[in-house]
């Protein structure tokens, strides 16, 4: 069959902006089988598969897309999940434009193949009709502990369970998923779907201990004492960073983590039916330009804010968020105040009333390769807001490093690992995800979890009883 040479992706149906800002339902509605087949035929089935090299977990992209084009969605799902245990999630939150799709040959003239959209379609299709059957795996009885039930830990757990290990995930919160549950909002990643996909990925008998904080409830050394042979640490970079500017402790200033956790995990959007409140003014400024900033801004809009601003010190080109999120945010009426940096949060009677900012301009490139923002002289101005949400990333939680002797960490708190194996300086301890890299993406964390699982297996397989 000749490939479909349309230069553009088959559009994905979406809720209209004016409707969706009033609800928390998912924005993108997903392809129909016909649309998916049509998009799949845009794939040229390149022999050299450049897209696969762009994927941190090496999904067999042309292979699964071929099955979609043939209408064999079950087989497409099987191919897809040989390398990725959380495809419904990745299809929605991966930055495809800088990974697989960035390397797609079709992208040279027109738009790349909609790999993310197809991944999502296949996963959703399979989830609708997935059977509860569990593949028979021969258990080897070797116990491995996973600290943190986010994307890195879940992937590592799933891979090891598949290899027959007796895996236990220790999770600090009352729900698995980490940032997938507390961070990414419902309208971008429905929580029912996350729960379902996680359950599917763990159906190989992974044990789950919720409400256990490694470093507090039990230490890594105690885990070894309890008979675990290896530990994977995937606790994320959950300690929110603040700007360290005046007024940051005023009432009405949130970290994005607090704001989003209240709304997503604790369902504050449903207050008072949900007991956790979230307090928000009519004018909201979100500091930062990443996905979390977009999520916070769009959440504030849905909670009823009249004016929502993204305040970012560089220009649009440097915004680290996914293109789709920026596009959606703009459609929903979020105002971007670019080349703007807050210097002070002003308040009255203890509550935020405004934010003082300076204008920036771009100077010479800095160590990140991006042009360094420089303050324009005497450009200070104040704009009125009642709520400020700080979304400038985070650093690793100190609990593990404080309680694990022999674990080498970077100055900023990240765990030092050998990048090929994710092995730490402490024997039989591996780490991956944001706790190693600092705030990054779901898929990079999953890639690290997968790499660690492979290395753990290599280290422990000679212990498997014959």
């Amino acid at each position: 069959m000749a490939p479909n040479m349309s230069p553009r992706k088959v559009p994905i149906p979406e809720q209209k902006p004016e409707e969706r800002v009033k609800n928390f339902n998912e924005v993108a509605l997903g392809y129909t089988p016909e649309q998916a087949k049509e998009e799949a035929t845009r794939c040229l089935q390149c022999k050299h598969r450049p897209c696969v090299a762009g994927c941190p977990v090496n999904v067999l992209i042309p292979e699964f897309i071929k099955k979609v084009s043939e209408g064999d969605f079950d087989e497409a799902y099987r191919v897809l999940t040989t390398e990725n245990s959380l495809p419904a999630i990745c299809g929605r939150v991966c930055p495809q434009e800088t990974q697989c799709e960035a390397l797609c040959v079709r992208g040279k003239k027109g738009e790349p193949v909609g790999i993310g959209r197809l991944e999502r379609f296949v996963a959703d299709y399979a989830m609708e009709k997935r059977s509860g059957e569990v593949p028979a795996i021969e258990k080897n009885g070797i116990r491995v502990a996973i600290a943190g039930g986010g994307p890195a830990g879940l992937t590592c757990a799933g891979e090891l369970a598949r290899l027959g290990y007796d895996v236990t995930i220790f999770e600090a919160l009352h729900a698995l998923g980490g940032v997938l549950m507390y961070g990414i909002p419902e309208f971008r990643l429905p929580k029912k779907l996350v729960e379902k996909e996680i359950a599917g990925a763990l159906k190989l008998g992974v044990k789950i201990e919720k409400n256990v904080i490694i470093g507090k409830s039990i230490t890594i050394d105690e885990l070894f004492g309890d008979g675990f042979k290896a530990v994977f640490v995937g606790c994320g970079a959950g300690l929110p960073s603040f700007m360290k500017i005046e007024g940051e402790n005023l009432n009405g200033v949130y970290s994005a983590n607090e704001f989003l956790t209240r709304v997503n995990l604790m369902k504050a959007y449903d207050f008072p039916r949900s007991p956790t409140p979230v307090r928000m003014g009519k004018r909201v400024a979100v500091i930062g330009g990443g996905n979390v900033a977009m999520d916070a801004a769009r959440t504030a809009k849905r909670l009823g804010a009249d004016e929502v601003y993204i305040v970012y010190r560089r220009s649009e080109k440097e915004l680290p968020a996914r293109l789709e999120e920026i596009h959606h945010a703009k459609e929903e009426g979020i105002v971007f105040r670019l080349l703007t940096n807050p210097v002070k949060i002003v308040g009255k009677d203890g509550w935020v009333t405004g934010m003082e900012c300076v204008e920036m301009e771009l100077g010479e490139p800095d160590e990140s390769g991006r042009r360094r923002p420089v303050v324009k002289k005497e450009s200070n101005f104040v704009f009125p807001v009642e709520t400020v949400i700080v979304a400038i990333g985070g650093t690793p939680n100190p609990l593990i490093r404080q309680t694990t002797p022999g674990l080498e960490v970077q100055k900023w708190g990240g765990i030092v690992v050998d990048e090929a194996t994710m092995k730490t300086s402490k024997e039989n301890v591996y780490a991956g995800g944001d706790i190693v890299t600092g705030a990054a993406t779901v898929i990079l964390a999953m890639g690290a979890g997968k790499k660690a699982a492979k290395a753990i297996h290599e280290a422990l397989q000679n212990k498997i009883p014959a």
Partner: protein
Amino acid sequence: MYEILSKKKLNNNVEEMVIRAPYVARRCEPGQFVILRVDDEGERIPLTIAEYDAAQGTVSIIYQVVGFSTRKLSEKKAGESIADFVGPLGRPTQLHAHKRVIGIGGGVGAAPLYPQLRKLNDMGVAVDLILGARNKDLIILEDKFRAFCKNIYITTDDGSYGTKGLVTDKLKELVEAGNRYDEVIAIGPVIMMKFVSLLTRKYNLKTSVSLNPVMIDGTGMCGGCRVTVGGETKFACVDGPDFDGHLVDYDELMRRQGMYKTEEAHACKIGLKG
């Protein structure tokens, strides 16, 4: 699920529950706290730990029924379970082998004070105590403290028990009468800790306070409990909950605790109110 092994009323408004929670009990130390959710729809609330028994795997919590979630908790009976119970959170109190220490417990603040003073006594420190509350009914744990405290002074706002007056009046009287203490450990309403700290600063008397403000996760994830201590922003959940009483910005803390005041029916904070 975490089983409620026993439950009793300490007064009209304050209750004690013993919960089976082996992970918490195993590593618990004085000064630490837990976060619990009563049921799957519940909010996460921080509560201080009054007692723990590693061998039995049990933890006892004492709480005042002040808002939506503590009311829900109060409806639970022995034999029933609560959905989530996580800890021990926060840093254990740094207890020093002093000669003599005085504890000050305001209202339910007596509960987290109890394990700290008991441990000090075990370490051979002479321990005195001032228990304060609005009235007689609100004085809790007196008998337990009597078991080891050298001197116990009770103050009530209305004079219905002990001396009429505030804990600070009693502390002032004791210090000015020539009593020497190496440290004051004050736990109670923020306003009480503020005034105790103001007083002890005058005497240059080392003072430790315990903060327990709004917390969502208790693991440093949200930053909702930030507080200025010595000019630096700290997170009460991971850097505390104990801080040098002379360095805490109490006015900011009280303001931050009032953040959800209008939603008080659903009080998401369990302040240590007297």
